[in-house]
């Protein structure tokens, strides 16, 4: 038996493979649910009900999908250029804390219509600033950015922890380490009244379309793809490799920083060190599930959000640990990798 590259790829396979991957992941975690002694189909039904069963749960799912779309895009644009930015978690926190700092004090005097866009930009810039460290290390010292950006996550979270325990600490939080809240007029408008769903979802979806257009229609998009597919070839063809990577990194870090900014301005209002239940890492999965396609990221983020929000409800009623959502999503990443591989290769005897 050996593997052979496919000469043509039937349309049915291209559509079927991702679906098969998701089904396989759900089947595998079904085994884990069964081992825990719960009825599998009932558990999945409860996940769906928990994610969409009521107006409240549906808006909660969409609220959860919003940062995932942005961190998913952050990973997707970087990975396409083979820039392994695993630091979205840290960039998310830096974006969040920058907004908390500027939105609670430094710029809080500004009127809302000016303040809100300004704060979003501030969050994005904070994310960019953080990713430039691993990028600089790669370009200057040939340090693999996977490890350096991962390590930066720990540093960033500790930095945030230091700020919310120090200069940015909310004196009214009963000694709890928590940042001061952003001004009321800096919070994002709600999309639906009496829910947590905010305009950030629209921003994220518009950005997904914009990223898609940039990648498919602009010179920069072509250059970033070329830098990923074949750096030597790209250099030979006149692609300014270093400059392209800097732009890609800024886009990626900016999106992750924006995710943090939007989460603070749209949902929490302040920063704690559990602001993100791993949005940065989940973004990597979202990007891979979408095969790095920006539009696909929206759907992959929705799938991930359904699993997380739905598993909360399911866990309460059936006693299955909520970590089943993390397991399913991680399994989906692995099965998707294999499924996408078999759209390119086939097994020959």
């Amino acid at each position, binding site marked *: 038996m*050996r593997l052979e590259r496919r000469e043509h790829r039937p349309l049915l396979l291209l559509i079927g493979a991702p679906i098969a991957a998701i089904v396989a992941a759900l089947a595998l975690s079904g085994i884990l649910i069964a081992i825990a002694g719960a009825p599998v189909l009932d558990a999945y039904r409860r996940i769906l009900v928990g994610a969409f069963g009521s107006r409240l749960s549906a808006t909660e799912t969409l609220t959860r999908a919003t940062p995932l779309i942005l961190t998913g895009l952050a990973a997707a644009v970087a990975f396409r250029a083979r820039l392994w930015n695993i630091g979205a978690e840290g960039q998310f926190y830096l974006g969040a804390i920058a907004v908390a700092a500027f939105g609670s004090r430094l710029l809080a005097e500004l009127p809302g219509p000016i303040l809100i866009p300004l704060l979003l930009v501030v969050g994005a810039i904070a994310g960019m600033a953080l990713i430039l460290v691993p990028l600089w*290390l790669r370009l200057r010292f040939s*340090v693999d950015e996977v490890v350096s950006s991962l*390590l930066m996550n720990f540093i960033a979270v500790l930095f945030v922890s230091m700020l919310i325990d120090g200069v940015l600490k909310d004196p009214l939080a009963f000694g709890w380490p928590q940042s001061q809240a952003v001004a009321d007029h800096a919070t994002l408008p709600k999309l639906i009244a009496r829910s947590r769903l905010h305009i950030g979802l629209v921003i994220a979806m518009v950005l997904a379309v914009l990223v898609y257009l940039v990648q498919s229609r602009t010179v920069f998009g072509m250059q970033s793809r070329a830098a990923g597919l074949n750096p030597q070839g790209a250099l030979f063809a006149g692609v300014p490799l270093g400059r392209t990577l800097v732009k890609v990194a800024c886009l990626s870090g900016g999106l992750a920083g924006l995710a943090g900014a939007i989460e603070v301005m749209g949902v929490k209002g302040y920063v704690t060190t559990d602001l993100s239940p791993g949005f940065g890492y989940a973004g990597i999965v979202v990007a891979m599930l979408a095969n790095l396609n920006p539009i696909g990221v929206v759907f992959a983020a929705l799938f991930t959000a359904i699993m997380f929000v739905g598993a909360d409800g399911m866990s309460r009623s059936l006693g299955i640990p909520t970590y089943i959502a993390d*397991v399913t999503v991680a399994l989906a990443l*692995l099965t998707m*990798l294999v499924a996408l591989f078999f759209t390119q290769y086939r097994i020959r005897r």
Partner: protein
Amino acid sequence: MSVVFDILASAGLWAAILRIATPLIFGTLGALLCERAGVLNLGIEGIMTFGAMIGWLAVFHGADLWTGVLVAAISGALFGVLHSLLTVTLGLSQHVSGLGVTLFASSFSYYVFRLVVPVAGTPPTVMPFQPIDIPALSSLPFIGPAFFTQTAPTYLAIVVALIMAYIIFHTPVGLAIRMTGENPHAAEAQGVNPMKVRYGTVIVGSALMAVGGAFLTLSAFNSFFPTMVQGRGWICIALVVFASWRPGRALFGALLFAFFDAFQLRLQTVVEGVPYQIFLMTPYILSIFALALMARRARVPQALMQPYRRGER
């Protein structure tokens, strides 16, 4: 300055160095073995987490400590099989597969742990490895408590490092591993099967990573809690680069790193006015610094991260 000397003169510091270094030695050696054959194993963080969980769980359910370590090693080997299937057989991106293995292994460990141990006030504990009393040596003043009051896995880690250095540089197996990591096509021409070598090293390497994790729950602490590995796996990946892919230097690197870590822990208690987070950052900053220092100088295995497909270039 006298504060610094006081810390350096305490036997506790030196004992802590060996203790902190042990999981790093196992993890770094595991990652190093995989990379010597050309496979980057970013599954390390998750594999260490799973090893910590399953080793602890086995002992919690009545197995003896060494059985716990063995169970952890077997679980690590199984994750090694998974990583090999993805990166060696299918030749998928080693970065992405490794991160996938880490995400799966760590969330799977938390799931199993929560299933067996529901949320409780104080996490349940096991009786961990006890320090071995070495006749004569352990009773020496200063030297005894500083270097000869470790638990058995610590000595095992040092022995494994020496054995691995011998195997890699002085045996035919080691030569096959190095050839596969430098040029799998040439290795195949010499009658070495690169696929088998890569499977073998990734499986053994992953088992070592899991043993490093198990040390955390069976010797350094006595219970398991989520996120307890805290980036040690990533630090190991950085240490491999720092060690320039040599087991002896990996041992040295892990000890040096542990020295700084143990030192900052003690400095934290005597220096006032500096936020504790600054101290906690130092291990990660040091790792990045070590990477920047060594990345250009180190001789990377030439076929690292390149999938091998027979007859394909």
